[in-house]
């Protein structure tokens, strides 16, 4: 099972890094989003893929799953969700202000000057 996860993580990282290296801001944002997905899968895998009962005291048969990585991933997902939303809004605003969605290009000509 781990090797499938390893390939999935590697693929997500590969695509994510490729997208980050492009010029278009929209692709860059998608790239960061894929990278964070890759990292979450990594976190899940590194903590060990095993089946078990819910870690509740007194319930279950003794073999329980480690809840910590799930808590970490949940926290991280929430954070990356918020940041990605913010990044999209910023990208739209930057496009409006600068007239281009290139992350490091010069500003487009003929657009209104900044406020």
């Amino acid at each position, binding site marked *: 099972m781990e090797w499938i996860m390893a390939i999935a993580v590697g693929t997500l990282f590969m695509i994510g890094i490729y997208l980050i290296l492009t010029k278009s801001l929209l692709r*860059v944002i998608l790239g960061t989003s894929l990278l964070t997905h890759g*990292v979450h899968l990594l*976190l899940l895998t590194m903590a060990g893929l095993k089946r078990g009962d819910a870690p509740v005291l007194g319930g279950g048969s003794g073999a329980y799953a480690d809840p910590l990585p799930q808590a970490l991933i949940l*926290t*991280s997902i929430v954070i990356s969700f918020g940041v990605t939303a*913010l990044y999209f809004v910023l990208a739209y605003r930057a496009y409006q202000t600068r007239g281009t969605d290139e992350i490091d290009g010069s500003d487009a000509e003929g657009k209104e000057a*900044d406020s």
Partner: protein
Amino acid sequence: MNNLLVLPVLLPMAIAVFLMFFRRKIALQRTVGFIGGIANIAIAAAIVLRVRSGGIQTLELGGWAPPYGIVFVADMFAALLVLAASITGFAVLLYSFASIGREREEHYYYASFHFLLVGVYGSFMTGDIFNLFVFFEVMLISSYALITLGGSKKQMREAPKYLLINILSSTLFVAAVAYLYAAVGTLNMAHLSQRIAEAGQGGVLNVIAVLFLIVFALKAGLFLFFWLPGAYGAPPFAVRALFGALLTKVGLYAIVRTFTLIFPNDPSFTNAWIVGMAAATMILGGIGAAAYRDIPRILNYNVLIGVGFVAFGLATGTRDGMDGVVFYMLHDILSKGLMFVLGGMLISAAGSDKLDRMGGLIRSRPGLGWMFFVLALALTGIPPLSGFVGKVLIVRGGLENGMLTLSLVALASSLLTLYSLIKIFREAFWGTEPDLDEEDADEAEEESEYAESGSRSSRASESGERPAFAGISAVLLMLLVVGMGLAANGVYGFAGQAGATLDNPGLYIEAVLKE
């Protein structure tokens, strides 16, 4: 158990949430921020005194004993940094009253400001590495808001890059935490330290250590600083002061904490990395500061020199070096805050950020000029000002450890600091007023932003800005920068206690795990 420890995080958070509901009531926002700032300084001072008398304080959140629950730990190092950060935060808040403008104040500036402080204090206090990530994010998301607030073209050009670099480093942070958890099975810093010491650091743990170093170096601007001069040049000066004084220091704090507590066992490997990065940062930062002729860039590169110096202190790995790191970081937080406040005042007085277009300001703004001069000496490390003690301790630590070349590099970077700041002093304050007839059309357009702030006093009454607060803020920080040097003996008592903990992680582990 000490509930005091949670207050530095709780108070700014409560203020920030409260302020979000009153975005048009500027006077209320300022008053609440002002009172909250003073209260936070008092709380931080109380924590410092408590640690001084009672040793390392811990708070198990929710009553879960470490290593299972998250724990807040205030050793002397963290407590002193919280104190310095709350003082600088308060001073920058005062400077914001004078400079930030109604437009930004009405758009949640103060709320973002306080959320940033939550992240900073939380990062200093937490004893759990994943919780450190969370507080980093709190701080970074607030900084995203602050760097974009205003929406000028320059900000819109720099902010996406700033976000990208931080998202990338946060992603690596989570990856590093994942590897670490797989390798040792815990996230509590004290417990990590103990387990890594038992397992022996080497192989995969060294790789993880370097991954953490890369993550924190990206945030601190240690060698991986290519994003910093551009990003820190975009927002208004009050925000730059906050970033330059606090954000890079949180990254540095994380480096110091991880490499003294979690990964101290293989110094010949890890320190080689830190030494190289510190040397490169000091050299490149020094060259940048000396080469540029516009004030924002000179100041930004000066931030880097300070970062390199602290990393050098850490790499010496000696007791003197550690004391120096503590001392120098305290000095650096206060003086970099002051540097940006003075820089902002200078630029709004001159109406330009180009040295070529300034001169003779000593006649109209003598107080500003001499404060800038004293600050330049303090940053260089001229006794008896505050930079001196930290630099002496760090260099002495370096020489004890036989790092002659790096000590020379560090001293040379101090010279470049002096050169770059005296360059500003000489050209902006001395000489004659520049002949403005020769200005290019391009430059004039570029500087309209500053010209607008130059005529600030005339429109201050309508926008509700209080220029007097800028002076108060600068004088407050100036007194502390000078006072810290004059009272070095007293401060050294505190810094020494912090250095002792950094030098001997056993004290920290014992306090947290109570074994």
